[in-house]
């Protein structure tokens, strides 16, 4: 399998959240992302920092992850971003 780029990994993580009805716990997200826990943490905190995802508390006060408006917009624009990078060889 070809090595995924940073943007592609971010897209994959966001898509997993979206496909889980926009509500998922960190552990299943880590498992489905196919990343090591160290790399997953890096991406997880970066996505939080860039406000693409949000943490919310569930009924039992457990941590869940949802997409922010920015996160949805990222998924919408992902193809255009990649095409733009390719067009100008950035």
């Amino acid at each position, binding site marked *: 399998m070809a090595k995924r780029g940073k943007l592609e990994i971010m897209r994959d993580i966001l898509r997993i959240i979206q496909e889980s009805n926009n509500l998922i716990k960190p552990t299943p997200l880590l498992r489905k992302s196919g990343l090591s826990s160290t790399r997953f943490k890096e991406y997880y905190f970066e996505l939080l920092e860039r406000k693409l995802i949000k943490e919310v508390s569930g009924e039992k006060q457990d941590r869940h992850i949802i997409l922010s408006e920015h996160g949805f*917009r990222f998924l919408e*624009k992902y193809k255009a*971003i990649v095409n733009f990078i*390719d067009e*100008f*060889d*950035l």
Partner: protein
Amino acid sequence: MRHPLEFLFPPEIGAELIYSFVIIVSSLMIYYATKEMYELSSYKGIKYFRQAFLFFAIAYFFRYFIQFFLVFFSLQGIIDISPRFILSISLFIFLYSSSMAVFYLLYSVMWKKWDHSKMKIYLFNLLALAIALIGMLFRGIEVSLILNIVLLLFATFMLFRAYKDTKNKQKGKSLFIIYILLFVFWVLNVIDILIPKFLQIYQLIIYLASIFLFMIILYRVLKKTGN
């Protein structure tokens, strides 16, 4: 003796104002059209590409518009500074900003191949400052001409290396031709400013060709960003 305002507004200023205005507007359109893409992705290549066009806009603003504003808003009488001083400062900012624009455009295609240290950005700033200082101090002297030609050769060599590594050769070819031409016309613009009589008969061709290149880039940006 020439009237002081003639230093700021030579007769050909009309064409130069339109030229600067078109370049500023198209550069800012490129900058703002890519704003959302950068905010969403934080992708470094997009960041450097945007900064290149922001610097182009600043460069051309200082090329003639500062003079335009000073005269039309009568600031000259208020702040009481000589036209020569304004010209020197405008020239310095134009040379610094346009050099930075070229460096950033080059860096946008090379950043993945070069190391990611911030030293490159500091180096670009130092080089751009040196070019601006030499251009301002040795106005019309061959030193800045040679310096700009050396930079053009360096930029062309780097672009050629980037082109060799590009996956989509057909698309890459047209992009690198556009960038090389943009760099060539940047050098011609610098010569035009430093040695005004040197390229006088070709001035209109230089303006039209530069506008055409910016328009091609703007068109490609707008097509890809969907704006």
